[in-house]
């Protein structure tokens, strides 16, 4: 099963505070363990929302709003993509993660949807095309 594991933002990350060398070392060791276990499929840090933007869709209209955005603890500061046997296994791995922030922080875990969840809406042709597209994009099934 695949999961998205999201590090939520804090005032520190939104202020552009960078991780210390000590935290980078610990995170690197954690990522090494994730890779060795075959869990790690991807991951990145996101720059503060001051460097970001939002596009609002309403019918045919598009409006752009520049960051920063206010709801700090709901913003995403970083993410991983993991392959685990269950939600419990994912939780065990997250517990081993070094605290990603200088102060208290929160990590959200979300199971990733698959094409099968769409049921009958997706015809076999569309499903085959979708898989092909993912291969072309360099993703593995």
């Amino acid at each position, binding site marked *: 099963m*695949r999961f998205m594991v999201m590090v939520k933002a804090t005032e520190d990350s939104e202020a552009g505070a960078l991780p210390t*060398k000590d935290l980078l070392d610990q995170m690197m060791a954690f990522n090494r363990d994730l890779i060795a276990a075959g869990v790690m499929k991807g991951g990145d840090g996101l720059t503060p929302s001051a460097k970001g933007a939002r596009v609002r869709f309403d019918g045919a209209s598009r409006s752009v709003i520049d960051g920063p955005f206010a709801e700090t603890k709901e913003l995403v500061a970083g993410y991983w993509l993991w392959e685990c046997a269950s939600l419990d296994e994912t939780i065990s791995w997250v*517990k081993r993660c070094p605290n990603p922030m200088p102060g208290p922080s929160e990590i959200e875990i979300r*199971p990733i*949807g698959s094409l099968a*969840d769409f049921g009958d809406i997706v015809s076999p042709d569309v499903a085959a095309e979708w898989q092909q597209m993912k291969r072309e994009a360099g993703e593995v099934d």
Partner: protein
Amino acid sequence: MRVMVLVKADKDSEAGNMPSEDILTKMGAYNEELVKAGIMLAGEGLHPTSRGLRMRFSGADRAITDGPFAETKELLAGFWIWQVKSMDEAVEWLKRAPFDGGTEIELRPIFEMEDFGDAMTPELKAQEDRLRQDIERKG
């Protein structure tokens, strides 16, 4: 540069309501264009937060709260990772996405090695490069 495109949730996505075949077809065509343009690096839909959870880190404490979570329009329902020349290019592509009905999508530039400054020592950078290669290899 790389950007993360965050598709925010709404009450339909949180209720587990699937998009129509019409929207799925349009999204398929859009994703096709993104792949052909060499922009699409990854993309996924997330199950509603009722199937998710949050873990709080405080010192050595770890506390779990099960979903669902309340702040619907701040929740994530899906994402893409795109390779683009600039934020402007990302915005132009995003405007063409087949969303409607008051959806809000967030664009966030991704940290590259240079952004970490002195804490990212040459050794750490070399290790990061090796790790990313390992991830690719293991697939």
